[in-house]
């Protein structure tokens, strides 16, 4: 019997982020307290990322950067890190992920949510007595470790044609991000046209780092099945696309559950 995780739901970054920390054995007393403190730290990381990178908060450093009020060197140090990472993913994705092509100027949102969740989960595990931890940022999931006894986390992928149903189940090692236009409306922008566009109903990317997976999934949704090649070219990453007709295509290494 799997001991229950210590869990929290945190409203941040315009969504609800769920945090689950799985103890090796039934957690009690001091260990629960320690885990709660680590979750506090993880939540603080998420809120900090929101304050720095939000394009909705008019006074966030990134909003001021977008308006040209400050230079990159005036912004908190992590902004330069994210800008460099975004440039790297733009390269890796052959330009299909391009925060500089967004309406309104540089918008790193497609990378930042995953990047922040990845930093948050690192505050939770590995740690003594902890088998594994997960941070689920509205469907983009960063993890460390596994369930007790080493069983892998199993994660469902929502069916884009019916978002309360699953199209697939995977065994998660690291992270998974899914992009699509279902439910949240058309939020994907084609960097080549500057217009909303997605060539598939849903695109998922698995790999070690959720920031990169998140950005690659965004790129893959816009690029369509042909984009699987740039995902697979990044060591450790694999993709799955689900077409508007329900047809799926996936990388050879995509970790479907048996």
């Amino acid at each position, binding site marked *: 019997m799997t001991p229950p*995780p210590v869990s929290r*739901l945190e409203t941040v970054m315009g969504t609800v982020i*769920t945090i689950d920390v799985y103890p090796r054995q039934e957690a009690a007393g001091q260990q629960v307290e320690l885990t709660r403190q680590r979750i506090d730290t993880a939540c603080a990381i998420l809120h900090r990322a929101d304050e720095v990178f939000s394009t909705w908060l008019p006074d966030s450093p990134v909003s001021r950067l977008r308006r040209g009020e400050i230079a990159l060197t005036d912004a908190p140090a992590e902004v330069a890190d994210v800008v460099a990472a975004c440039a790297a993913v733009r390269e890796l994705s052959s330009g299909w992920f391009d925060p500089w092509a967004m309406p309104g100027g540089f918008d790193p949102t497609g990378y930042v949510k995953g990047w922040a969740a990845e930093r948050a989960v690192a505050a939770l595990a590995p740690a003594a007595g902890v088998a594994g931890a997960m941070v*689920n940022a509205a469907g983009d999931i960063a993890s460390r470790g596994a369930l007790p006894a080493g069983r892998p986390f199993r994660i*469902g992928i929502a069916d884009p044609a019916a978002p*309360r149903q*699953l199209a697939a189940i995977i065994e998660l090692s690291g992270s*998974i991000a899914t992009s699509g236009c279902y*439910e949240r409306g058309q939020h994907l922008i084609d960097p080549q046209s500057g217009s909303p566009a997605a060539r598939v109903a849903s695109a998922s990317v698995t790999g070690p780092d959720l920031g990169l997976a998140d950005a690659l999934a965004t790129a893959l949704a816009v690029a369509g099945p042909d984009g699987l090649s740039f995902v697979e070219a990044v060591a450790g990453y694999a993709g799955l696309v689900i077409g508007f007709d329900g047809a799926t295509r996936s990388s050879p290494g995509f970790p479907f559950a048996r």
Partner: protein
Amino acid sequence: MKRAPIVAAGTVVGVVLVLTFHTSPAALTLPTGSGSTATSGQKAAGPGSTSSTGSGRTTGGKSGSGKSGSGKSAASQQTAGQRTATGPVVNYNYGLISVRVTVSGKKITKVSIASLNDGSNPRSQFIDEQSIPQLEQQALQAQSASIQGVSGASYTSAGFAQSLQAALRSLGV
């Protein structure tokens, strides 16, 4: 078309996201015993049940009713009295939602919507009408969880899960 219920949740205490699974038969490894117990529990268990009416508005005619017959074998789960709590009203992407849950011991026997205000926006209503009956239905089976999360999951289910979790917490589950 038949849809097999699936259960997507951390634990009772964790995030109870709830979905149905219809495409990939390979993964339909529902522990059938535990899956059916919760559904039947709400009817069979008499003692001390409080507000156990009104859940049937949408869930009753679906797969749940088909399963409840077989659930009699699970009567051992129903010894404890039933307790009900209503979760806080949670702001989600389309409006406000509050979830009511009934437990027997540590087992969820009933989940329903205590309140919902999605602003009468047609799109929100469409999404909620599609999702909430299934969320209710599937949350009953959350304890037999076979997955720990959902990628690409939705705002509605996040709000639902948040209110449900708080309700469960107030019951000490």
